[in-house]
């Protein structure tokens, strides 16, 4: 194998790793943003300050997926250590 091919493989490997890592971070950020959005929408319905009840009711029909995701997150919040280790990719 020529040196140039080895170099190319290394660069591609590093690039792929960075891409994967970046994608993971964006996914994590997306999940948290969606979670924050859902919490804001349902906050008037669970007694927290937020937009009006009517705003919540009007948006509620469209956030079914986000709502299910937030419920999943809330279930996992009992194990905060595992959640943190998961974020840091420590297994």
């Amino acid at each position, binding site marked *: 194998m020529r040196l140039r091919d080895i170099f190319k493989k290394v660069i591609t490997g590093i690039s792929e790793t960075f891409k994967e890592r970046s994608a993971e971070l964006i996914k994590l950020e997306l999940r948290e943003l969606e979670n924050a959005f859902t919490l804001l929408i349902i906050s008037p319905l669970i007694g927290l300050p937020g937009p*009006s009840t009517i705003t919540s009711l009007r948006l509620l029909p469209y956030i079914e997926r986000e709502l299910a995701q937030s419920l999943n997150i809330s279930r996992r919040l009992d194990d905060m250590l595992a959640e943190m280790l998961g974020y840091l990719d420590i297994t």
Partner: protein
Amino acid sequence: MKIIITVGKGGVGKTTTAASLGIALRDRGYSVLVVSLDPAHNLGDVLNLKSRSGKVKVLDNYEIIEVDVDEAVRKYLDEVSLMIKSTFKHLSVLNIDKYIDILSNAPGVEEHALMSEFKRIIEENDDKDFIIFDMPPTGLSLRILSLPFIHKSWLMELKNLRKAILDRRRMLKNIGEELGDVPIDESSDPVMRELDNMLKECEFLIGKLTSRDTMCILVLAPETLPLLEAERAFRKLSSLGISVRGCVVNKVLKLREHVPELKSKIEEQERCLNEIKKVFKDMTIVEVPFLEQEPRGVDALRRYANYIDSLVDLVLRS
């Protein structure tokens, strides 16, 4: 079309002023609609009306509406319920109406429903020269009138957050990540569409409330508490950009003889009248004397209108 809103403490004469101003404008050849948004109506009582549901024609070019607040809340929640039901069809077995009924008592729903009626009435009656809104007592009035402004700031925040979410989804899609069937741009996102719809409604209301064709008139009695409340209302409305241009000081005691029992009352009145002239110096202020009988019926309201003549001129001028 011009919008006039009467604001003041309960029992100071907002309804009488609104009804009488309407008659004065109608007598000058304009078409007028007077709307009571007060949950405890007495617009129909002031006009001695028996039938008072829906839009009632009192005179040619003079109509009134007493908004049924409970009905407005019900109608508003029915629309929301319909929207929820059409999306969560699989939950119909749970009888979602039961939960919607509970929501009619949720904080803010009454204000939302009244604001929604305010918007509907303006849209449906744009052929009128004047729409006069007789508002509930100050506290509820300010909550209703500030609602579109507060609502807008929340919607802007939600919109920014939603934009950030759509940005991240697009980024992931661009690098080939599988996200499933989720909207990635604003045009295909139903949440963004609904936020935009709500924002448009808010902007319509803010536009109407802050327009040069809209003015608030403060109604107060020459007493300390109504004056303090009127000052607070003036500050709040001005901070929202709603123009307050007129002030009706109602029930001013004008005694022909000295009555010792009313000495301190008259002193308080004098002090308040001086304060009113100072605080509301840029407004047209009219004084209405304490009348032996409360004005009821069209003729009595016409006589009342003589006292607020300069206010009628102000409305026609602006």
